[in-house]
């Protein structure tokens, strides 16, 4: 398949079943809500070492937030409910509770609930209060700018993580511009995030390593500097590769985000230095979701 001169390799992205929770952070001013979102989704690029993959999903108009203040939605993906249950209170306690004027709400419904405010209420040292409004319990924790309002629990739902495509370009600058185009295209889609900053990572990995203590290591087949010494996937003139990683609430959203992202990159075309689009997989043996690029773009 060729789009605007760019070859789309006949391969697939291998993605995994994950667990997701959506939180809504509100604040007195939009900037403070975004700061809290940036803090709580920091160091959350990959479940390999961060525990969760997280990013801001979208800004929310005050008319649509629970407390009528400016807000943002943040999606958190993890490999298990247990891991989310461990990570969320820790991140909220250090990044949202600490951020002036913020309040925190669950942003999705689901049967499985994990603790939020119920876990961090003890910061109130006995002065915390709970309030049940319309069947939902909230914790009011006294802090130095007033009260931190935090919903007691949030829902956890099944999701899909690890959708991806690789951009092979003439050089690093071209590849960066392509990632910017992909990020801009994917950003408006609700229900998906690209957990790496700028949507892309340069350290695409393979499973395992020659060193026993590592579970993942560099994907040498896509390293331009090793092209002549390993079984490379790159050709002459391929100067840089970046991987766009996508997590979504379901497979359809991941598929949609991949298609829109790849189309945005292909619009730059060979004239813009884009040489090829491919995808990362592990031979199809690890992930339950296989997104074939030709089918995604059909």
């Amino acid at each position: 398949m060729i789009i605007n001169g760019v070859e789309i390799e006949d391969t697939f992205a291998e993605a995994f079943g994950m667990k997701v929770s959506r939180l809504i952070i509100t604040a007195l001013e939009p900037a403070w809500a975004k700061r809290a979102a940036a803090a709580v989704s920091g160091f959350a690029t990959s479940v390999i070492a961060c525990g969760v993959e997280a990013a801001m999903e979208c800004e929310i108009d005050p008319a649509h937030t629970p407390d009528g203040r400016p807000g943002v939605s943040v999606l958190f993906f993890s490999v298990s409910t247990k891991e989310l249950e461990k990570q969320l209170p820790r991140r909220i306690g250090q990044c949202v509770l600490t951020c002036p004027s913020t309040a925190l709400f669950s942003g999705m419904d689901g049967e499985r609930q994990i603790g939020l405010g119920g876990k961090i209420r003890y910061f109130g040292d006995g002065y915390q209060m709970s309030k049940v409004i319309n069947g939902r319990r909230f914790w009011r924790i006294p802090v130095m700018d007033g009260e931190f309002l935090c919903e007691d629990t949030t829902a956890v739902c099944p999701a899909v993580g690890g959708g991806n495509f690789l951009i092979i370009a003439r050089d690093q600058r071209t590849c960066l511009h392509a990632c910017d185009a992909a990020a801009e295209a994917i950003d408006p889609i609700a229900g998906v995030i690209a957990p790496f900053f700028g949507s892309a990572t340069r350290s695409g990995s393979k499973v395992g390593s020659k060193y026993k203590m590592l579970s993942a290591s560099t994907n040498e087949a896509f390293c331009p500097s090793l092209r002549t010494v390993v079984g490379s996937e790159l050709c002459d003139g391929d100067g840089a590769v970046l991987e766009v990683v996508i997590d979504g609430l379901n497979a359809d959203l991941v598929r949609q985000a991949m298609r829109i992202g790849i189309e945005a990159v292909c619009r730059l075309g060979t004239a813009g230095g884009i040489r090829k689009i491919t995808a990362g997989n592990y031979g199809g043996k690890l992930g339950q979701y296989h997104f074939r690029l030709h089918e995604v773009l059909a």
Partner: protein
Amino acid sequence: MSGIELTLRHPYAGILDASAFLPERLFSLSTAAIEQIEVDVGGQKEALGHFFSVSAIESDRLVIQGPVMNSCRWGAEMSCGRLIVECDVGDEVGLGLRGGTIEIRGNVGSHLGCGMRHGSITVSGNAGDYVGAPSLGQRRGMRGGIITIEGNVGQRAGDCMRRGTIIVHGDAGDYLAARMIAGTIAVCGRVGKQAGALMRRGTVWAPQLQPASIVSSFSSGQRVQIPHLALWYRWLASIDTRFSHWAHAETYAHRWLGDAAVQGLGEFLSPIAA
């Protein structure tokens, strides 16, 4: 499910115990079987049919046509369905209510919603003392659900209340929220004396609150921002259009904390402009 209407045939002497008049019980019986149910009136057992005519109606409700002022325990331990009483009733309406809806289109006596756990009770008139308080022999009051009273309530509304919501559109009598453990009470009218006596936790929201109404062992009022009021106002507006002007109100309030004689984390909130 077809509904049932019970219409009083003639006045009776004594207090009628209405705890047998439950939608979930009556809807599973035939009209003839309903008429055979034994009812306690003034300590005497009589067949229900002796006092009420029974008829099927086109709805999913149990409707009572009175007058049955000398009656008690309407909807006691009710778990589902909709009970409508079209007249004044006596004490202990909704005693230990576990679900469903009770509508009283008149006034009610004391101990409304005592020990209730879930469901809702609406009273179009006034209610007596001890709304949402513990049922006799119990230490804790209502544990969930919502009670809405269009008129006034008597003394000790929310006494030992553990959870749930009471909304009073009129005035509240003395000792409002006394010994309250948790939950929320809204009083749109005036509040009587000694409010909050021995209150441990919980919230009373009262726009017309006068500081003199609150028991003296509360803290002095201070102006604070209460974030959860935004949610509270929106919820109030969603359940009753009379609260719609609160939907986007500021979340500042005068707040009194107490009762310092006990745990001291109960609060009275009187909203103010930013």
